[in-house]
């Protein structure tokens, strides 16, 4: 399979997801336009995870370059959220390796992922509903005074700063986030992700709960972050959310990668064909999940 024999310590369970029938090579060739011989910011290689008997992610490989937006597309249940939760440390993988800047990364839990500069905006937003915006922004990374107590005032000050950039009308710093509107909650989740100088940003259905105006705001933000050299994974089951923002798309089906394509080389309809049928158009590079031609 892969050249790297190094086993990850995270694979506590035996690598059950390495059956003989999956003998075909999974190390895919890079898209020339994106690669240019550069090291990818993230490379997930040959990742598998099974829940009970269900192989949610099946030998999937994806990569992401600095300043690039990669769309991860597929039906509900195609395995895209699961794959990305492995990168953000929420699920331990059964098999496969993750490389950050060419170095093998040990990601066993969300803390590890954050240490590598991987920030995630979950579809559910993953906010603690009963505490205020500042507490959510700094959850798990609280600022402390020199006596080791929480420095709420400093945290609120920073929260006001970053929220002022994202959502200038936001005033409700004292309310628990459960009392906020959908758009406000979303901006809290985004603020949390960008507050700590993320290098890799994962956005799982970032605009699912938003109105048109807020969606445009998020799109603007993505362009800004991209210009800063941050790599972004955009996950969606709706191609229209992603196509215009992404430089490249990966399509997943039944836990496998159908293929990848630069968005300039394919049409929306062709990508739809990949999502629905698993059929790769000429502009795409087929993966292990592609329908036999």
């Amino acid at each position, binding site marked *: 399979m892969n050249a790297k024999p190094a086993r990850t310590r995270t694979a506590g369970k035996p690598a059950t997801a390495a059956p003989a029938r999956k003998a075909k090579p999974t190390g895919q060739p890079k898209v020339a336009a994106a690669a240019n011989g550069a090291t990818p910011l993230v490379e997930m290689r040959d990742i598998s995870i099974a829940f009970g008997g269900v192989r949610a992610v099946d030998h999937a490989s994806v990569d992401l370059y600095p300043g690039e937006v990669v769309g991860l597309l597929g039906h509900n249940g195609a395995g895209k959220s699961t794959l990305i939760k492995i990168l953000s440390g929420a699920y331990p993988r059964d098999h496969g390796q993750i490389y950050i800047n060419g170095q093998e990364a040990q990601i066993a839990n969300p803390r590890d992922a954050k240490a590598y500069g991987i920030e995630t905006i979950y579809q559910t937003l993953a906010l603690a509903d*009963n505490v205020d915006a500042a507490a959510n922004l700094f959850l798990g990374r609280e600022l402390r005074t020199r006596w080791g107590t*929480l420095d709420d005032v400093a945290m*609120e000050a920073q929260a006001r700063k970053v929220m002022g950039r994202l959502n200038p009308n936001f005033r409700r710093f004292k309310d628990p986030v459960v009392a906020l509107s959908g758009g406000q909650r979303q901006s809290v989740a985004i603020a949390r992700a960008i507050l700590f100088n993320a290098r890799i940003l994962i956005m799982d259905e970032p605009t699912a709960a938003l109105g048109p105006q807020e969606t445009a705001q998020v799109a603007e933000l993505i362009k800004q972050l991209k210009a800063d050299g941050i790599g972004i994974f955009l996950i969606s089951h709706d191609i229209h959310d992603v196509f215009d923002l992404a430089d490249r798309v990966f399509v997943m089906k039944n836990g496998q990668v159908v293929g990848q394509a630069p968005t300039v080389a394919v049409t929306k309809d062709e990508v739809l064909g990949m999502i629905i049928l698993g059929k790769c158009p000429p502009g795409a590079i087929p993966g292990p999940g592609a329908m036999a031609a």
Partner: protein
Amino acid sequence: MSDIAARPVMAADEEGPFRRFLRQTEIDSRLLGMVGALALIWIGFHLYGYFVNGFGAFLTPRNLWNLSVQTASIGIMATGMVLVIVTRNIDLSVGSVLGLCAMVMGVMQVWYLPQWLGLGHPALWIITVIMGLAVGTAVGAFHGWLIAYLRIPAFIVTLGGLLVWRGVAYLIARGETVSPVDSRFALLGGGPFGSIGATGSWIVGLIACAAIVALIITGRRQRQRFQFPVRPVWAEVFMAVVGCGFVVAVVLLVNSYPWPVGIVRQYAEARGIEIPDGGLFIAHGFAIPVLILLAVGIAMTFIATRTRFGRYVFAIGGNPEAAELAGINTRWVTLKVFALMGFLCGLSAVIASARLNSATNALGTLDELYVIASAVIGGTSLAGGLGTIYGAILGALVMQSLQTGMVLVGFDSAVQQIVVGTVLVVAVLMDTIYRRRAR
């Protein structure tokens, strides 16, 4: 029609000044409700006693002083129960853990330690207390481990603990009552000698007043430094005056409850003091267990609101999955919450057994219900994520006031049970309605 349409406007007008007052002083309206309920209970029992039995026994320094001591044991455990319930768990074993700790301490200080140190050795009570706290913490941590790492529901673990630890306590002393406890240890339970007297109480009161003023001033400065909105000056002054006034009133109250005549006579004889005509007035002042409760309340409030651990406890209660994804080690936090609960059970065991001057096998029976009821009456949501330490202490005071009041006016125990049970359900109902309105 017009009547219905006009009503909301009128209500808004009527509530205007009061609402504005609450908002500007940042007083929790729930706190006001609890204080109101407490006042109602106190005055109600006093008047009932006055009219039905011919004398009102409730609002007397003696009763209120005793009430404060009786609240200490439940109140201490209730502060820990807040954190347990906030993390969406429950601890049904606190009464039995209290019984176990009390029995371990009783056996230590009555049977074993005197053999090595000699009876009445000054270090005896210290070793005993440390033992009790260690046993409580260890048992709590063990519960926490079973719950957090082995994923057994807290309800089951602590239901098992309720039976197991009561049984272990029985086996330790073969069911005997162990007494009397060490004389210094006994001071931790209160009583005339276990109180700090008038001068000491004034010192505590002055420190409390200074702390209130200092907190208000530093809080205001901090907010000004970052140019956040601040409360109006009149609201700050109002809070300081109310806070200090309350402290002074409490000090005056505990200082107006004198030692019983018999104890004064003993004390005077031992010291060779002449008792003047009309008797010698020696005030109790704050009882030591009440000061312990006060210290625990402050420490737990600090832990809950000013530390990372406390922030994580509330975050886990609000959304366990989000807390996990934010990188919080939720299992370790859960274990620590239960260990803390166990520690507080040990502390309550010190007070309960010192007050009783013995360790009995029944000590702490049914305490779990009063502790949970206190936390819930104090506004801790069983759905998790919400609760305050001061609320739980006030809740404990409400529960104890009901109990004491009913004993004073002569309700029999069957009626007492009915009332306590009803109050618990009604309190939760009111809380549910309040939260629905607040949305």
